[in-house]
């Protein structure tokens, strides 16, 4: 019984944040942020370096738990569940996947990389895993590229392939939300294009929150955009609105390249 309730609570796809604050020791990196992130859309966070974008993103899957001296207050809701109460963090992370700035495939085969998540949650049957690997790679649009080298080492792939593999790996546990922290900053334009297409495709089923330094990227792929400055979320709204008609003068200055 307990299990079903738990799972039900952790399948939400929208994110709602109220009065969030975060400290690294004495340093406040997030200052009183409230925001509603809609489900099955791409939301982008932009802002100058060190303004707290990654930090904020990591609040959604509680990766900040790993950092000593990091303290979070405020309300973070995924669907209806407040994630900073007593919950199963691993179940949370199963629902809220993450893709990192630098591709981080595990030093194992392509197949095992993708099967890692499902295996974590108790799926060990070969046929089931085969199915998941195939679906995930297809979703990440790399099945044709990789179907013949499933047993080759993931470290042998190119940087762009590695990053898309990491996306496929995240998809394999069927998350409701995927967080991406500058997923294309280490990649060439062609790989970047592929990942951008992928993001649009994924919104059919998944909420995507992406941090990017590339404003064109934000305009190309995101439905909503948030502008961060010094730990504050200055403005969050429809992407068109933000880039054509920003409400805050700081946002305007940033997108027109006048500071940052």
């Amino acid at each position, binding site marked *: 019984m307990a299990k079903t309730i738990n799972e039900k609570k952790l399948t939400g796809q929208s994110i709602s944040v109220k009065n969030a604050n975060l400290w690294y020791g004495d340093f406040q990196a997030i200052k009183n942020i409230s925001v509603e992130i809609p489900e099955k859309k791409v939301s982008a966070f932009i802002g100058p370096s060190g303004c707290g974008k990654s930090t904020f993103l990591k609040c959604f899957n509680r990766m900040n738990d790993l950092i000593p001296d990091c303290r979070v207050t405020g309300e973070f809701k995924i669907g209806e569940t407040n994630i900073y109460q007593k919950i199963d963090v691993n179940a949370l*992370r*199963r629902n809220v996947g*993450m893709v990192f700035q630098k591709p*981080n495939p595990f030093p194992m085969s392509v197949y095992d990389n993708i099967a890692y998540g499902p295996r974590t949650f108790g799926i060990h049957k070969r046929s089931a895993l085969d199915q998941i690997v195939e679906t995930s790679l297809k979703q990440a649009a790399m099945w044709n590229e990789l179907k013949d080298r499933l047993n080759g080492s993931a470290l042998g792939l190119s940087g762009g392939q590695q990053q898309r593999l990491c996306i496929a790996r995240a998809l394999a546990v069927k998350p409701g939300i995927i967080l991406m922290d500058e997923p294309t900053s280490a990649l060439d334009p062609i790989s970047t294009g592929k990942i951008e297409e992928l993001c649009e495709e994924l919104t059919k089923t998944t909420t995507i929150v992406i941090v990017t330094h590339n404003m064109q990227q934000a305009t190309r792929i995101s439905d909503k955009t948030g502008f961060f400055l010094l730990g504050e979320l200055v403005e969050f709204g429809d992407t068109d609105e933000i880039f054509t008609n920003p409400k805050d003068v700081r946002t305007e200055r940033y997108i027109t390249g006048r500071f940052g």
Partner: protein
Amino acid sequence: MTVLNAKNKEKAGKAFFAAAAVICVIAVAAIFAFLIIKSVPAFGKLGVFEFIFGDNWSSDRLDTYDSPLSGTYGIFTMIFGTFTATIGALLIGGVFGYFTAVFLAFYCPAVPKRIFSSVINLLAGIPSVVYGFFGIVFLLPVLSKIAPNNGSGLLATSIILGIMILPTVVSLSKTSLEAVPRAYYEASVALGANHSETVFRVMTPAAKSGIIASLVLAVGRALGETMAVVMVAGNSPNYPDGLFSSFRVLTANIVMEMGYAGEVQEGALIATGVVLLFFVLLVNLIFGFFSKKAVTASVKKQEKHKITYFNKQIKRIKNCVYSFTHKIGAVKICKGMAIGSGIFSAVALLLIIGFIFVKGLPQIIQKPSIIYGKYEFASENITILPSIVTTLFAVAISLIISIPIGLMTAIFLNEYTKNNNIFIRIIRRGIDILAGVPSIVYGLFGMIAFVPIFGGSSSILAGSLTISIMLLPTIVRSCEESLKSVLKSQREGSFALGAGKLRTIFRIVLPSAMPGILSAIILSMGRVISESAPFLYTMGSVISAIPNSVMDSGASLAVALYRLSGEGWYINEAYATALVLIIIVLALNITAEMLAGKLSKKLKGDNA
């Protein structure tokens, strides 16, 4: 339900790892507690001052704590002897080691440098009894040509110890020399200084702290060295009053008399161990000071005050260049020293290994039964088969104990703790301290802690337990190093997929760290095989039949070599044993180095 289970599993896992760390703490505490408690009566009876500063040692095994003493127990001659020998070793090994490091860092072409560096590392793995044996069969006969005696004494001891500390000095100094920013070199050359001037006026001064740290560490090694010294020092409890006078060091005192010691005598020997431990800890403290300074200095140089520091440095370089004209002769001498030392070190290495090979190989070829023959009591035919079996037992038992505990402690320290907790700091500190404790002190501890548990006589089990504790600190440290080398992004990747800590550790971290862990295991095997001082009075030193059980006593290969070389009748067998030892240890070291190489390659591949 499954959620709950997973949680409990995580908790149990953490408790398990923490338990291993606690065992390490207990081991540290036990060593100190045992030695101190056991030495208190002796210090009380003999008087701390009289014991340390008395310069007459003539022990009487019949002395008891309840009756007046008939022997005298003052160890000052040995304290003096220990320090004289250490200074001698430093004059030889320190100087040659330093210049060899300079040679490798700045004068040696790349390929010979790689070979030379790994040979130096191999040298560090050669058992100390083999050095002692080399001293007996090669050095002493050479020295006896100019000595009034058989050549033993201060000079022989200093030379042997000097060669033994060479690898430590070379590899650590080389590391800190290579860490000096390349920009200094370029700045100096741009100002018109030539290569050697730059090396000796700019580069080596910049690496000063690291070089001093390497020398201090070498002093710690020399203070604690036992068997090699025992074999060439002569060991009579006098002040060394000439290059060839027989003298005794602190470690030797323990080895010479522990085997037959009476009540007060045993107490006095344990007290000797405590004094030795005190000096070694003092040296460790000093080492800690200098290596910290070296680290902060290089951090400063490279990161914080990059510009100001660099400007200062340039000014200094300018001043140096002005003074070059006056001291150009000194630089030339230094350059000569560097190249000469490099060659000397290479020759010394080849000499030791080559000599044992040339003398030992014919013995084994002529009489291969030395290795596998059946043991017969009082037979002319010595065989080392029982020693090989004993050694295998010791390796197996000690690794079964120390690897899991050491690895689990490392996992606890690296994966579960956030560094700032007092408890953790105590564990780390304790492990660091243990790593510097001389092996004879472990032997002493094993003798008073483990031997009584197993019926009062030495046994394979007691010896293996003793050596297990000795292995722990290095295993913890090197396992931690390999765990640290696993990229953080790998762990994050696993956590982000919802994997728990245990799964992340076992599926992601440990597989990546495996080559490093394996090489730690192999090096530990090498140490068990090489060590002799901790075994003498815990596992046994009599070459006898193949042991039937772990409760039997037996001499390991290294102990057997000590025995054979001391008796004089079995010198051929000793050569053969030494060769077998060297081959095993070199093979293990080469394997470990290859594994470590594989690890770094893998990590590089990971980054690409």
